[in-house]
């Protein structure tokens, strides 16, 4: 956004809570790699130029990449600045920070979709012998006690935790709700390449038939590894991870799990099938069919006949519960009536329901790729155009 505003000669400042790439430095685990291949790490005027376009950046590389972009842009970043409130008074946004106050006609909220970890209400009722942690606190298996671990949530984060924690010798049970399954590599190309080429990632928020549902789709079960491995429920089952249903509640010392495991796995298998059908059709229509490997379908997710419906959390077998149940944005510092009854910001493709305010980086904000690094560019161009028009309208109105 800073780049687009500079191109449009809009004077601006970027307020950063810590240092550039702060959440990557302080709120992520050690083995994390991007879920998108290097060639896809594109920002306006800047892209990956290393020797491994098909690889996936690890944490230091991600930090370097974002740091490099800030330096490349000479972006007007003011670091170590925590915004404590944003209000609207006298036709201006009034920003209070720990480094002084600001006034502006427009504000772009880019504080992230993944700020506050979601934790179920019954978290507080777990037996005291259990340590609970959230993904922003997790660094590596070494920080966990020896013994069993219950990982709750089987999207990219939960699945990666299950894999590396089980390999560390701590037996993992994985509680699974709705999830999105896809192979890392399909017909010889990264799944992201196909989704990019077939236009899936560019699908717009005003074109899908149910945007609320599209915005709530969990992140796909992907992992970036040097071997371009596919990680799914079958691969962690092969390691010995135990699959159980969605964490449904606590009764006494027993954790209760849904009997819907078979269906959530069917839903994910069928959805993957439809994605691969779309890709195959696209390959056929675009004369790619003969230039890539043959079409493939994968074995259904294996589910035990009778996975356990409850687990005793007080018998010492499980020592740690990890809530990999998603994140939500933090709007606690917004003193504006822009949140709906579910606490989500009201916006139309990033144009917030408050004059001159914009939001970026949320899931499917304007396009399916909106919450990815490579999704920021198109959204920033659209929203900065809107912002310029808004400022021009302000100027016209005030001159009358």
């Amino acid at each position, binding site marked *: 956004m800073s780049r687009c505003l500079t191109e449009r000669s809009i004077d601006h400042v970027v307020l950063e809570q810590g240092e550039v790439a702060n959440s990557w430095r302080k709120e992520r685990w050690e083995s994390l790699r991007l879920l998108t291949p290097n060639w896809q790490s594109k920002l306006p005027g800047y892209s990956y130029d290393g020797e491994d376009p098909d690889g996936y950046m690890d944490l230091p590389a991600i930090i370097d990449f974002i740091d490099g972009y800030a330096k490349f842009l000479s972006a007007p970043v003011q670091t170590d600045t925590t915004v404590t409130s944003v209000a609207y008074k006298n036709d201006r946004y009034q920003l209070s920070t720990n480094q002084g106050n600001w006034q502006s006609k427009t504000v772009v909220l880019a504080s992230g979709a993944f700020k506050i970890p979601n934790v179920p209400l019954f978290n507080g009722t777990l037996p005291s012998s259990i340590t609970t942690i959230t993904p922003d606190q997790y660094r590596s298996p070494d920080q966990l006690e020896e013994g069993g671990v219950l990982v709750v949530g089987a999207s990219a984060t939960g699945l990666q935790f299950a894999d590396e924690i089980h390999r560390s010798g701590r037996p993992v049970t994985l509680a699974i709700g709705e999830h999105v399954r896809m192979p890392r590599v399909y017909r010889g190309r990264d799944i992201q390449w196909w989704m990019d080429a077939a236009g899936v990632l560019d699908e717009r928020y005003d074109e899908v*038939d149910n945007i609320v549902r599209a915005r709530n789709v969990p992140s796909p079960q992907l992992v970036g590894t040097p071997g371009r491995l596919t990680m799914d429920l079958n691969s962690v089952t092969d390691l010995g991870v135990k699959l159980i249903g969605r964490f449904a509640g606590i009764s006494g010392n027993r954790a209760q799990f849904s*009997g819907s495991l078979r269906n959530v796995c069917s*839903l994910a298998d*069928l959805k993957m099938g439809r994605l691969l059908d779309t890709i195959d059709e696209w390959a056929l229509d675009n004369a790619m069919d003969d230039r890539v490997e043959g079409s493939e379908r994968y074995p259904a997710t294996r589910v035990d006949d009778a996975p356990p419906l409850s687990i005793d959390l007080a018998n010492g077998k499980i020592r740690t519960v990890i809530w990999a149940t998603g994140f939500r944005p933090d709007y606690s510092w917004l003193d504006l009536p822009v949140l709906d009854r579910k606490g989500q910001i009201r916006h139309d493709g990033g144009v917030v329901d408050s004059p001159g305010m914009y939001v970026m980086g949320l899931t499917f904000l304007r396009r399916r790729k909106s919450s990815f690094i490579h999704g920021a560019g198109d959204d920033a161009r659209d929203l900065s155009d809107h912002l310029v028009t808004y400022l021009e309208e302000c100027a016209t109105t005030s001159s009358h």
Partner: protein
Amino acid sequence: MTTTTEASVDNGVNVEALLEAKAALTEAPEAAKFIWRANCKWVNGTHSNSVVKSFFGLGEEQNHRTEFTFDADHPEVFASEDNGAAPIEYVLVGLASCLTAGIASIAQHRGIQLRSVSATLEGGMDIQGILGIDSEVRNGFDGIKVTYDIDADASRADIEALVAQSQKRSAVFDIVANPTNITVEIK
């Protein structure tokens, strides 16, 4: 996925009315709160008679068109008179009819013409539980198997997606698959 309703598809489901209701209730979530009721009277032995008539929803009291009654009893192998289906069989009936209603509605919404839909349900149960013979045996089902036989103008994958979506949206599936708090009081 097809979301437009094809004019030629008719499963007897008024999807437009359902979609209008969904839009209206999104704006007024309070009206979405329903209370379902049943009244039960003991007849004799293990025989009881239950009635459903009124319910609450859309912000006011509602009534079925007529009163529906259900006799429940146990079969003769339980030394009962078998005046009606066993209560546990009503659970299967509830699950089957909920999933089947969902299949018809979702098929209509997706433009899939159904020709026939039938389901067979089996719930396994070890009655050592209810008889108190073995406290480690659960009272209820140890599992439920539902088998659908569906003839429709759709591919196998589309029919599988229909059945999966119906489970995802089913009230009774949720009640059976997930824990529910129950409060039983005496007046």
